[in-house]
């Protein structure tokens, strides 16, 4: 039943499996629904110029655009939304529309139009992932496409220049993030305990903003204040994208918790060893006044220490 499926997308970076929003959406959904995809990063190939990204190749068909790819995966029986009611399905569509209309322009602006971010982060990253001589014009082309999308969809008269549109775009994005945060509340995912397509879309849009080290990021600062969204992002990364976790997510979550506990214990032990060494050095040093040693968490000697000579 499962035909081999290949996904071309931008490669990993900034702590994420992909730095490109649309590619991330597809990757996240594939993990949620259990679809096995072979990832073909387009980095350092001429596909950065000719290919539409992301693109799913399966048995000779090619599907582009995240919404179409998700539909295709559902038809292949990889459906992360089967537990949703009809109303929740309708809500999913509505919230995805909200993301595209309100958040996407601001994200495009943050990464591709804001001069500081573009010059210091986005352009170097993408240029370093394109083969010569594409590295000279692919980032520029993406930036121009981003700018025209923002101006055409948001820059209706009397707003014509990008500086006037900026304020409007960022206000709408902050409102959108607030709305998402209200909707998520304290649940782990947007609908119940298992993630679906809306979670994939939100993750795809928010993760690059959260994880990239942007020099200029008013939107990122706003996002950092919405702790439930940040926790949602981190939870998805840890549960579904922790280095090769092919098994069912709850098992890998337990395993990673145990591993973390072990690491923590090791750290505590190392710290206490260090403290002991420092203390020994201090006491044996002739310059320092000898004083009673502090109470130690680990038991070394049960005897009470007498005052040193």
């Amino acid at each position, binding site marked *: 039943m499962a035909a081999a499926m290949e996904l071309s997308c931008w490669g990993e970076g900034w702590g994420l499996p992909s730095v490109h929003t649309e590619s991330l959406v597809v990757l996240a959904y594939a993990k949620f629904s259990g679809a096995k995809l072979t990832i073909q990063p387009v980095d350092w190939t001429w596909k950065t110029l000719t290919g539409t990204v992301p693109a799913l190749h399966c048995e000779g068909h090619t599907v582009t655009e995240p919404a179409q790819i998700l539909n295709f995966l559902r038809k292949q029986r990889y459906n992360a939304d089967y537990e949703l009611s*009809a109303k929740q399905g309708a809500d999913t569509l509505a919230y995805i529309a909200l993301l595209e209309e309100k958040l996407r322009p601001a994200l495009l602006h943050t990464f591709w139009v804001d001069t500081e971010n573009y010059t210091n982060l986005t352009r170097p990253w993408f240029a370093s992932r394109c083969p010569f001589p594409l590295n000279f014009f692919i980032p520029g082309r993406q930036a121009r496409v981003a700018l025209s999308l923002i101006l055409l969809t948001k820059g209706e008269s009397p707003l014509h220049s990008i500086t006037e549109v900026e304020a409007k775009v960022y206000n709408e994005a902050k409102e959108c993030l607030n709305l998402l945060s209200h909707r998520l509340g304290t649940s782990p995912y947007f609908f119940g305990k298992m993630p679906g397509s809306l979670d994939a879309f939100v993750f795809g849009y928010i993760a690059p903003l959260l994880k990239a080290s942007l020099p200029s990021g008013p939107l990122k600062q706003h996002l950092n204040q919405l702790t439930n969204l940040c926790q949602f992002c981190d939870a998805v990364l840890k549960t579904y994208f922790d280095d090769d976790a092919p098994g069912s997510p709850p098992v890998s979550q337990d395993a990673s918790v145990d591993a973390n506990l072990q690491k923590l214990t090791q750290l505590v032990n190392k710290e206490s060893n260090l403290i002991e060494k420092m203390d020994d050095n201090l006491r044996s040093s002739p310059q320092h006044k000898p004083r009673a040693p502090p109470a130690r968490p680990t038991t070394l000697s049960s005897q009470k220490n007498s005052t040193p000579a």
Partner: protein
Amino acid sequence: CSLQSECKVPFIHVGNQVVSELGPIIQFTKAKGHSLSDVLDDVQRAEMKAYMELMNNMLLTAELYIQWCDETTAAEITRPRYSSPYPWPLKHILAYQKQWEVRRKMSAVGWAEKTLEQVYEDVAQCCQALSQRLGTQMYFFNRQPTELDALVFGHLFTILTTQLTSNELSDKVKTYSNLLTFVHRIEQTYFEDQGGGLSS
């Protein structure tokens, strides 16, 4: 008309002020103390905004596409209607300029490659979402209408009453009986003293 060139329709004229477009009009009436969505909690307000964006994203874009990117409709209905207030040759220049603007916007949002069939499918999907959300309720939220109800009514009423080259768009909407009932009810409750309306 000078107002037409400066403001976008719809607009309201209050004393010396003119406020145009739906969003600002809602804010303006809210500032005057009339708001429909105060009864909603935060989660419901988030849902309402999301559905309003769905309407903008799908229905509005589909309406623009059908009017300006479908050559038959554009030539027979839209361009003549758009250019009618202006003298020759201004009418042709303005009509083609508007068409060019809309087509540019369509290609920026990725709708330029869509076929008419795909656009009708998108409209059907949007109507299905609205129909599922409305269910058997009288309005989308509780028993009182909100901004979302006004927006949905505006779009669906226009689709159902505007004559296009084919009836496929209005037929798609008519397959959802609860939406049809919703539109009739609002028309009768709030607009019954005015003539004209939905035929059939």
